[in-house]
């Protein structure tokens, strides 16, 4: 049989003709996938628009200079913009302070766990330890908050820090650090594990010890992923709400004493939104200014991380 006769069959159609139905399907898939990609981006833009729109209203009452330079936060007591103080530094400092404490806990332990899992643990141990760690990352943060308030604080009070207050930034931040460990460990473990075996063998063949291979060859090779995990951890700490709202209290004060209560930006937003501030009131307006500040902070952090990861990305 020749090609001609085959073409003649099949209801006289040209076999090489494009299939219209197929083209439609292809195009449809493309459109759906594109829509998925745009939904998150457009939503983000929408949020930013609302956030900054409302914040702009607030800054017409309270100047941005006051917002950045005042050293007290008394928005809850203010009925007019003049009789309150709106120093964001109070809330921002609480956020930064708690993040620092949490990072002191989470970054070294998370990285250590990642190195152990990837380089030292046997394959069998790694197989169940890593999922276990990742499950830990799924514990709701409210549980951590209760843990801080009902266990860690009383424990510290009864043992080494009798002067600690019921609501304090220290327990909340320590527990937040513990919460972040799985994130840091899991993401950096992925990066460390992805370093090709050939690189390790090259180091072993030069007479490197296991420790030298792990710390001087493998970790530097995975540094961009490790930094990404750190930033992810820091971002979670900056944005963490429930632990802070539950265990750190609601006292907006500027202090460096971790045994006292402090109010982070997120905890403040929780307090206002769960209270009875009517829409349009001054206190209601403040949360958009605080939210916008939080947004700018995390955006900055992510931008730095993005730059860093690209700058130090390793090609193996």
């Amino acid at each position, binding site marked *: 049989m020749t090609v001609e006769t085959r073409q003649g069959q099949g209801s006289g159609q040209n076999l090489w003709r494009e299939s219209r139905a197929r083209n439609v399907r292809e195009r449809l898939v493309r459109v759906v996938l594109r829509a998925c990609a745009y939904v998150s981006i457009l939503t983000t833009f929408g949020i930013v628009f609302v956030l900054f729109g409302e914040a702009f209203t607030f800054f017409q009452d309270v100047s941005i200079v006051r917002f950045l330079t005042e050293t007290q936060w008394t928005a809850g007591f203010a009925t007019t913009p003049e009789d309150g103080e709106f120093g964001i530094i109070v809330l921002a400092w609480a956020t930064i302070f708690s993040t620092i404490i949490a990072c002191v806990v989470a970054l070294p332990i998370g990285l250590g766990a990642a190195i152990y899992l990837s380089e030292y643990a046997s394959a069998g141990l790694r197989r169940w330890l890593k999922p276990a760690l990742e499950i830990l990352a799924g514990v709701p943060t409210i549980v951590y908050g209760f843990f801080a308030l009902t266990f860690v604080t009383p424990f510290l009070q009864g043992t080494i820090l009798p002067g600690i207050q019921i609501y304090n930034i220290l327990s909340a931040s320590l527990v937040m650090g513990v919460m972040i460990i799985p994130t840091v460990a899991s993401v950096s473990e992925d990066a460390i594990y992805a370093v090709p075996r050939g690189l390790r063998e090259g180091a072993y063949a*030069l*007479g490197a010890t296991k420790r030298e291979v792990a710390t001087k060859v493998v970790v530097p090779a995975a540094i961009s992923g490790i930094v990404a995990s750190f930033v992810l951890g820091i971002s979670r700490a900056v944005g963490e709400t429930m632990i802070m709202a539950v265990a750190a209290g609601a006292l907006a004060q500027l202090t460096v004493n971790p045994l006292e209560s402090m109010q982070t930006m997120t905890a403040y937003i929780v307090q206002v939104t769960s209270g009875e501030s009517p829409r349009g009131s001054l206190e209601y307006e403040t949360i958009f200014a605080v939210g916008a500040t939080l947004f700018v902070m995390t955006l900055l952090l992510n931008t730095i991380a993005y730059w860093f990861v690209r700058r130090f990305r390793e090609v193996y």
Partner: protein
Amino acid sequence: MANPRRTKEEQKVTEAPQNRRDTKKGTGGASSDDAGASAFGMRIENLSAHYGSFKAVTDVSMDIRANKVTALIGPSGCGKSTYIRCLNRMHEVIPGARAEGRVRLGDQDIYARDMDPVRIRRRIGMVFQKPNPFSKSIYENVAWGARINGYKGDMDELVEHSLKQAALWEEVKDKLKKSGYDLSGGQQQRLCIARTLAVEPEVILMDEPASALDPVSTQKIEDTMDQLKQSYTVVIVTHNMQQAARISDYTGFFYIENMGDPGRLWEFDETEKMFSNPDRKETEDYVTGRFG
């Protein structure tokens, strides 16, 4: 070349490391034949290698002569790479892998109970099939191994010397601060050779070092090899029979008779004999290209 970084423990591996370099300098590679296997070659006795319950190589005995190039050839999957990795205890780095038998460097069994694999690898270096430079600068790639081994001399000099030995210096001398990954594949492989040389091992093992490279890079690495045997004992696994014939003094042919059996050393002799008049039929079939 007195070497201050050798410690007592290392001296156990090679009985007279200080004299060794001097001897070599005096005699070059030429007279190493009469030095025999007792000098700084290697003697392998009844070596078998396993991956878990799978036996990959069985019962290999071989004398590797000092200051000679020994090539290991044979069809894929016959255990050449596994075998060469046993010679500096790299095999056991893979989880579940182990080796049995005796491997002597000088008169020390590197598989003896009190032998530290880390120190053995400092004396028996290795270059791998795929170039694997570190994610460090070209300079650091070469300096790193020497530094972790406690090298106290002039590092710039060592780096330059090693890169020259590996025939890479002219191409990289103006960009030592650049990443090792900025080099081409062939250059990366020569960087890995330079890094191995900087540790000043006794023996250099090469596992198909040119298999992923273009002919020009391969040529450069082969030229390097000829220089290297002046100061080192070289063992090279290669798939390329012409390469084995060109560069080696001795050749070992690995072969698996039946599917599923472990690989064996089928024949081992001087390269000239192996390629002109081998004793066994399979060797002849392989070197003449009838299979493999």
